[in-house]
């Protein structure tokens, strides 16, 4: 079940592209595979929007694509990280850790 309220939707939009890049760290994956993983993690409201996102990431030279044969069916487009993409993930990881701990501090502080 995808959480649906506006705040979560906004957060999701903010982190989505970095999650995509993170999923590509260390391995190439094809679109459908990325979509199902992010969707079951509750990070995608509509799966189709993933493709425009991937095509933007490719234009920004954060991911590269290659066509590879699939065991059954037509060839698939595989996505992999470019050096720029790797940098983007690394820098987001740092920012996220900071961001998360700041938010946690505030949330925990309020609770007690």
């Amino acid at each position, binding site marked *: 079940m995808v959480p649906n309220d506006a705040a979560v939707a906004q957060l999701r939009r903010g982190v989505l592209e970095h999650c995509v890049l993170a999923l590509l760290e260390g391995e190439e994956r094809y679109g459908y595979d990325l979509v199902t993983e992010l969707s079951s993690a509750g990070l995608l*409201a509509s799966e189709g929007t993933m*493709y*425009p996102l991937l095509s*933007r990431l490719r234009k920004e030279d954060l991911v590269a694509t290659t066509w590879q044969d699939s065991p059954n069916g*037509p060839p698939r*487009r595989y996505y992999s990280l470019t050096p720029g993409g790797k940098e983007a993930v690394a820098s987001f990881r740092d920012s996220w850790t900071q961001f998360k701990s700041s938010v946690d501090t505030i949330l925990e502080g309020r609770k007690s």
Partner: protein
Amino acid sequence: MMTQHPLVADYLARLASAAEGLPAQEARELISDITDHLDVGLNATSTPADVRNLLDRLGHPEELVSTLGAAPVSPRSWDGRAALIASVGLVGFVAAEFAHANLRLALTLWVIGIVATWVTPLWSARQRIVATVVHGSGLGLAWVCYHVALRYIRANSDCARQTIDAFQDVRARIEQITALCGPDMTGFNRAYLGLGGLLLLIQIATAVWLLQSFRTEGRKS
């Protein structure tokens, strides 16, 4: 290939028409990515419920296109306006033809027809040219018809010639010729109505052809 499933085909058709506002390359890529997604996600054992589920999860075609930063082509909202302008154009042309005896009014209507024809986003370039040539020439031809008929009756009826010379106003002329020279009017009426009727038929046929676009556009929405 499950992309032949009617629900899938319908979805892809909607996507294709929503993507018309995108640069060609982007539209092609989006459609090919989504087609591949559906190909991978569906197989021969997929039930109609599976198909619907997969499509629901993809989201609305219009939404996907707007993610790419372009306003999706939404035939419904734009069409209403386009169709209205196109209709004004057609009505303007036909009214211009009927008003040909009053040249000033006719020319005003004709200009409205031309402007509307070229302003409405509804017509393709080919349709604009056909509308301009066929409908645009209609007024001129109707005017020629009228003057040919007038010259004919002038040459063949003394009564008509005298009436024509006596009345400057075009509408009064026709009324008076008909009233005063009844039997002599046969030739005039035959030439005038015959040529005019033929002209009108051509105009109506062209308008019907042009109006097909209303239907095609309507189907897209």
